[in-house]
């Protein structure tokens, strides 16, 4: 049975080349891994685009539903093709760079932001086998790349040479940097409980009694609290309502992306959904059992295994579980957005420093004590 996504891809290539009579094994090891990685990354990139497109549509449908109106429903079934139409519209739009902007940084910023948003996808596991890169420090990799976004956003805010953009950039910098602390504390709580930093291992650890072996229940109350800390901090990190101050339309016009148009704007837009997905997926992985449950891989009672999914079915079930949970958590974010007003800049710092950080520390200390006792 193949180990990871890379192995699967290699296996597929080998088989495919074998059909036409070429021996893939003769290609040097490094090249083979590189090719597989490239393909896997391409697949993830496609996945990000699909998720962003889907949620661009879902957001509007959910908003329509909440706001007692229709939302897009003309183009294609349920308006599903609306996003394609939008994408075409945006691609042919004029790309405007303000005359007084710093042209190089202005162009670089969206790329950095997207990089920061996309990089964590590489370590997100979809099932036991489906993971692009099984890094042993996966959690830290994800968190640290998320921080790259800050640089891009400050750059965008500064390079636009617009005071409102600068405000947005500075707000985001303050917000993301402070919210990384409670996020880190919540992650540490899980790390202490499970003893790993590898996302795959963390999920494997949550196997057993259906949903009751999820960290959120197993580590009750510490992991339970930590989940809220992590999710809220992640919400702030992905600048979603009620923490959407960096792009608060009613205050600072559109914040750091005020001056961006066309494709460059879309890159910011995609990154926002990508970040949302990363936060949701990480919450699912760290606290909600990843690919385990609610659809089980194994049916066992009376101490006997009655049914076990095969490797392919198991990967499929894992994917459904994982994507289902992530999408649900993303839906909650949409739900928040269309329900709540926005907090103020002092309140956001208050919430972080005086509520989430102490809570995170309590979780970490509680979990450490827990780990020592057991």
């Amino acid at each position, binding site marked *: 049975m193949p180990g990871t996504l890379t192995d699967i891809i290699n296996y597929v290539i080998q088989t495919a080349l074998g059909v036409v009579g070429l021996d893939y094994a003769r290609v040097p090891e490094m090249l083979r891994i590189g090719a597989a990685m490239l393909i896997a990354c391409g697949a993830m990139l496609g996945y990000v685009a699909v998720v962003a497109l889907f949620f661009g549509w879902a957001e509007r449908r959910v908003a329509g539903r909440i*706001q007692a109106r229709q939302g897009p429903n003309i183009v294609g079934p349920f308006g599903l093709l609306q996003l394609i139409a939008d994408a075409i519209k945006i691609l042919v739009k004029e790309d405007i760079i303000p005359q007084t902007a710093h042209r190089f940084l202005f162009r670089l910023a969206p790329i950095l932001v997207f990089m920061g948003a996309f990089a964590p996808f590489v370590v997100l596991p979809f099932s036991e086998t489906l993971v692009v890169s099984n890094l042993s420090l996966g959690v830290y990799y994800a968190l640290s790349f998320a921080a790259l976004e800050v640089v891009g956003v400050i750059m965008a805010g500064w390079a636009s040479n617009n005071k409102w953009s600068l405000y947005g950039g500075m707000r985001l910098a303050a917000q993301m940097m402070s919210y990384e602390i409670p996020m880190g504390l919540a992650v540490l709580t899980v790390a202490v409980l499970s003893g790993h930093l590898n996302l795959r291992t963390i999920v494997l650890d949550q196997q057993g009694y259906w949903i009751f072996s999820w960290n959120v229940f197993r580590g009750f109350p510490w992991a339970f609290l930590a989940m809220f800390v992590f999710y809220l901090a992640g919400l702030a990190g992905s600048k979603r309502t009620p923490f959407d*101050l960096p792009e608060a339309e009613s*205050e600072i016009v559109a914040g750091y992306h005020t001056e961006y148009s066309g494709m460059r704007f879309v890159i910011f837009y995609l990154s926002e959904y990508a970040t949302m997905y990363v936060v949701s997926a990480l919450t699912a992985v760290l606290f909600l059992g990843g690919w385990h449950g609610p659809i089980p891989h194994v049916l066992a009672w009376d101490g006997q295994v009655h049914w076990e999914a095969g490797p392919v079915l198991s990967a499929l079930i894992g994917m459904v579980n994982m994507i289902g949970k992530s999408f649900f958590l993303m839906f909650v974010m949409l739900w928040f*957005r269309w329900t*709540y007003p926005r*907090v*103020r*800049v002092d309140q956001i710092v208050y919430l972080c420093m005086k509520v989430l950080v102490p809570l995170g520390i309590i979780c970490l200390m509680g979990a450490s004590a827990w780990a020592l006792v057991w």
Partner: protein
Amino acid sequence: MVQSLKTDEILVNMGPQHPSTHGVLRCLLKTDGEWVREVWPYIGYLHRCKEKIAEKVSYIQFMPYTDRLDYLASANNNLGWAMAVERLTSIEVPERAVWLRVLAAELNRIASHLLSYGTFGMEAGAFTPFFYGFRERETIVSIFDQLCGARLTYHYARIGGVMRDLSPETAKAIRRFLDEMDRRWVEYNTLLSDNEIFVRRTANVGVIPADLAIAYGLTGPVLRGSGVAHDIRKAAPYACYPKLDFKVCVGEGLKGTVGDCWDRYWVRMLEIRESVKICRQILDGLPEGPYQAKVPRILKVLANEAYVRTEAPRGELGFYIISDGTDKPWRCRIRAPSFCNLSILNRIARNCLVADVIMILGSIDVVMGEVDR
């Protein structure tokens, strides 16, 4: 190290094109980071020389121009202008017309406050109240469509009466709407008024003490939000208001200090309910009879002058007309409530956050068509 960093206050233009300056208001902010040290409002971007126009057109012709003052409450403006001209000419208005005008004015007040509810929510960062407010406003607008054929600039009250009688179907539609409004009102509060984030954004922000409010000539919900029970419908009753039973709603500082943004918001919400009550009473007690008095085609007004004030959704709307015996006023001065209400902005929006300035501006609820005239 930190002390040696040089920081500076920056001047930022908020508007005239800005999502939440209610049209074309321009505010110059002096900011120190997120702190706003001072705000200077600059107005006049929508100035259309209304007072000059009034001197050039006849009394009857000026009526549609009043629609475009506070374009969110044109029925109230029509009422004010009609009453002012009737006061000068001693035209007797049929009782039914008086009641119909008040019905239109109160419906329009609900519509105006609903819009204010929506935009205020939007300024706080919540989108959904905007759509909910607009959903109910749409019903009112359709009712006006039935009533007088227009959806925004109604031109409903005419000198000496109203343009058209109320049909039974429209009356039924209004009743249906009023019943629905009662239900929706509760929903609105669940969504926004009692929301913890919203309360924290608005309570204790932009507090206007009662004496300051009076000194700056604030009127309407802004004044009442400061706890001053002053409503021209009660203080100097006009039209059929003495026969109607309603309450003057004042801010009580339920969530913070008396006179904060939340209080001003809440006064508007309460007024929606009072206006619903008034509309019901009007529909129940609407007298029969003609709806338009005989008014000469060319209305000449003897040399005279009068200041007539009415309670528009945003406060005291006054028309001061000086006539000279011709069919055009010699001078027409419009006391626009938003103009006076906005003048306090510089005084209260000091040393607060950028987000607070938006909330204060939203809670004052100006309409630039009226400020700039």
